C-alpha cells in the first residue's frame, strides 16, 4: 500500500525532527555556564545545604550526557522538569496555559482556512477588477504594519477609548477570563471567554485570511493560464463550472501543502498577539520564561510549541497523501 508507506515515512520524519529539536533546545541551555540554584543565593531564609540538595535531587551535578539521558527518559514519561521560578513542575505550568493557546490557534486556523480560500478564489477570478485592486492594496498595507502595532491600536481603540467614550460595547484590555468568572453560570462563562477572545482573534484572523487568500489568488491566477481552462471554456462550460470543477480544485492542492507550513507562522503570530493582549497562552509563557532566564520552563514551552507545529505539519501532509495520489508514489 503506497498510502500507508507514505504515512509511515512522514511519521518517522516528524519523530526524527522532533528529536533533533528537543536535543537542540536541551544542549543550547545546558552548554551554557550557570546554575539554576543561583536563585537561592542571597536568600537568608534558606539553609546553606538546600542548593546542594536541590542540585542532587534534579541531577544537576551529573555529567552532561547523563543529564541528557535523564532528560530524555523524563520526557518520555511526560515529565518536563521543574520550574525553579514558579516552584511548580513545568508540565503543570504549561497545562494551565495550553488550553488558551489551543483555543486561540484552533479557532484562528479554522476561520483562516475557510475564509481565506473563499476570498482568494473570488479575488483571483475577478482579477483586474476593483475588488481585486482593493484586495491587493489591503493585503500589502495591512501586512506592512507589524502585527503587534495593529494589536496595540485595537486595544487602544476598542478596549480603552470605547470605554472612555461610553460606547455600548467595549472589549477587555488583557487576560482570557474575568478574574471573578468562577462565580458566573456556565453560559456566562462561555460568553466571558468569547468576549476576551474577540480582539486577539480578530487581529490574528485578519492577517491570516489576507495571507491565505493571497496565496490562493496566486495559485488560481497561475491555473487560469493553463491550457485545460482554455479547453474547458472552448467546450462551452459556464464560468462557475470552470471555476469550481477545473480551477478551484487544482489551485487548492498547493494550498493544502502550505497549511502545515503556515502553522509555524501562525504560532509566531499568536506569540506576538498573546504578548500584546496579555493573553495567558504558552507563547507568552515562553517569552516571560526567556526574559526571566527560567530555562526549564523555556525548554518545556519550546518543546510543546515545536510539537504543535510538527503535529499540524504531519496532519497536513497525511491529508495531502489522501487527496493527491501522486505524492504517495514519489
Amino acid at each position, binding site marked *: 500500500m503506497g498510502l500507508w508507506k507514505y504515512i509511515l515515512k512522514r511519521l518517522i520524519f516528524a519523530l526524527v525532527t522532533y528529536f533533533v529539536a528537543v536535543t537542540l533546545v536541551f544542549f543550547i541551555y545546558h552548554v551554557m555556564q550557570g546554575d539554576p540554584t543561583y536563585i537561592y543565593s542571597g536568600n537568608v531564609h534558606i539553609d546553606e545545604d538546600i542548593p546542594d540538595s536541590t542540585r542532587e535531587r534534579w541531577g544537576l551535578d551529573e555529567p552532561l550526557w547523563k543529564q541528557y539521558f535523564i532528560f530524555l527518559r523524563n520526557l518520555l514519561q511526560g515529565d518536563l522538569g521543574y520550574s525553579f521560578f514558579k516552584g511548580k513542575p513545568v508540565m503543570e505550568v504549561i497545562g494551565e496555559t495550553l488550553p488558551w493557546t489551543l483555543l486561540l490557534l484552533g479557532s484562528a486556523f479554522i476561520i483562516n482556512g475557510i475564509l481565506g480560500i473563499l476570498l482568494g478564489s473570488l479575488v483571483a477570478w475577478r482579477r483586474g477588477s476593483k475588488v481585486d485592486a482593493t484586495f491587493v492594496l489591503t493585503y500589502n498595507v495591512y501586512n506592512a504594519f*507589524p502585527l503587534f502595532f495593529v494589536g496595540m491600536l485595537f486595544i487602544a481603540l476598542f478596549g480603552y477609548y470605547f470605554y472612555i467614550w461610553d460606547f455600548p460595547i467595549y472589549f477587555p484590555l488583557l487576560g482570557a477570563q474575568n478574574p471573578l468568572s468562577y462565580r458566573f453560570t456556565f453560559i456566562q462563562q462561555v460568553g466571558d471567554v468569547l468576549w476576551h477572545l474577540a480582539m486577539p482573534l480578530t487581529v490574528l484572523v485578519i492577517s491570516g485570511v489576507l495571507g491565505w487568500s493571497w496565496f490562493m489568488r496566486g495559485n488560481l491566477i497561475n491555473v487560469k493560464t493553463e491550457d485545460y481552462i482554455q479547453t474547458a471554456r472552448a467546450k462551452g462550460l459556464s464560468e462557475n463550472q470552470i471555476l469550481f470543477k477545473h480551477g478551484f480544485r487544482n489551485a487548492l492542492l498547493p494550498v493544502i501543502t502550505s497549511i502545515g507550513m503556515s502553522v509555524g507562522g501562525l504560532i509566531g503570530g499568536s506569540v506576538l498577539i498573546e504578548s500584546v493582549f496579555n493573553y495567558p497562552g504558552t507563547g507568552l509563557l515562553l517569552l516571560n520564561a526567556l526574559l526571566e532566564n527560567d530555562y526549564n520552563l523555556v525548554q518545556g514551552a519550546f518543546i510543546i510549541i515545536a510539537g504543535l507545529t510538527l503535529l499540524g505539519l504531519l496532519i497536513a501532509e497525511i491529508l495531502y497523501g489522501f487527496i493527491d495520489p501522486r505524492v504517495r508514489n514519489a
Partner: protein
Amino acid sequence: MTYTDITKKHEKKKRFSKPREKVNLFITKIRATLLLIFWEKTGLKKAINWLKIWFKKVLDKIYQLYLYLFKINSFVFVLRILTVLFWLAAVSMLLLDTITVALPIYTDSLGTDEVLIKALLWVIFDLLAAATVLYVIVAIFVEEERSRLPTIAIVQIFLILAGLLLGLPNSEDSVYVGFALLFNFITIVFAYFSFVALDDQVKSLTQFRKSSKVFFRNRMGKIGLVILVVLVTLAALGPSITRYEADDMDLANIHEGPSDIHILGTDKFGHDTWTVLLDSLGISLLVGVVAGSLCVLLGTTIGVTSAYIGGWVDTILMRFADIVLVMPPLPLMFLLASLPFLLGTIHWSMIAIIYVIVFWPVSAKLIRGQALSLKQRTFIHSAKASGASNRYVIFSHLLPNVFPLMLTMIITSMRQAILYEAFLAYLGLGDPLNNSLGLMLQAAQNQFALASGYWWLIFPPAIAIALTTLSFAFIGMAFDEIVNPRLRKR
C-alpha cells in the same frame, strides 16, 4: 447555452454598465481639461519631453563612446592595470586593519576571562578577503580565468562585510575597513568593464534594459522605488538634517507635542522623536538589507550545491533544511536571541545572523527546485556533452538563470527581516543600545503613548516600518513580473 444566449448576456451587461460609462466619460473629460491647463499650457509637457529626448541622446552618445573606447586595446589595458592597483590598495587596507586593529584586540583578550572569538573571526575573514588577490596572480598567467575576476571581487566584498559584521561593534572604529570597501567597490566596476568580453557586456546591458523596461512599466514598482529612495536618503542624511543628536535630552520639554523646536515632539526623556526616528530608520534598513541578502545568498549557495551534486549530499542538506523549516520561526528566534552569552551584548548584527540561521531553508528549497528543473534542460546537457567543466556549468549557466529568482527573494527576505527585527525589539529581545523602529514602538508602549494621547511617539515609527516594508513589497511584486512572465498584464 446557444450563441445567441451568450450575446444576449453580453448585451445585458452592457446595458447595466451604461450609467457608469457616463460617469467615466465625465471623469475623462475633467481629466483632459485639467491636463490641458496644468500640463500643456504651462509648458511642462514640452519641457519634460525635451528633457526625455535630451537624456536619451546623451545616453546614446555615452553608449557610442563606450563602444568606441572599449575596442581600443591600450585603453582596456590601462583599465586593467588600474583594476589591479585598486585591488592591491584594498588588500593593503585589509592587512593594515588586521595588523593594527583586529589582531591587537584578539591578543589583548587572550589572557583575560573572555576570549574574543569575534575578533579572531574578524581577523580570519579579513585575511580571507585579502587572499582573493592570489586569484589575480593566477589570472595574469591563465587567460581563461580573467573573465571571472569581477565575481571574485564580489566574493571579496562579501568577505569584508562578513568580517565587519563579526567584528562589530569593535570594527566600527576602524577606518581601514571603510577604505577597503570603497576600493573594493571601484575594483568590481573596473574589473567588470575591463576583464569581461565586450560582447558579454553588451548582452547583459540589453538584458538589463529589457528588465528595467518591464519594471518601470509597473506602477507599483515605480512607487516602491521612489519611497525606498526617499527613505534611504533620509536615513543616510540623518544626523545632518536634524538639529539634535539621537541621545540628546531636552528635559525642559518632556512629552511635548510637535512644535517648531521639535518637529515630531519629544518622549519621556526629552529625546527628539524626529532625530531618533531617522537614527532608527537607518539601523532597521541596515538589518533588513544585511539579513535579507545574506540569508538568500546562503540559501542560494546551499540550494545550488545540493541540486547540482545530488545524491546523499542533497538528501542530507535538504533533510537538515526540512528540520529547520518546520520549527516555528519566531519562538526559535527567541531562543537564539536569548542565549545568555548574547543577551548581555546583543548587537543588531547578531539579530541579522539569527535571521539568517532561521530563514535560510526557505530560499534554499526554492532555489534548489529552480536549479533542479534547470539541470534537466537541454542546454545544460549539451554544455556538459561538449566537455564543459562543472564550474563552468554552474557559473555560466546555472547561476545566471537562478539570479532573477534570487533577486526577488532577496527583496521579500529584506522586508521580512525588517519586520522580524521589529518583533524582536518590541518583545525586548533586540539590540538595546541602538535605536530601532521596533524599540521605539516598545518605548512608546511602555509610556502608554496611545492611551495618554502621545500619538507622535507611536505613529511615526509605525508608519516608517509600514513605508519601508510596503516599498519592498511593491518592488518585489515588480520583480516578480520580470521573473514570471505569466503575471504580466497583456
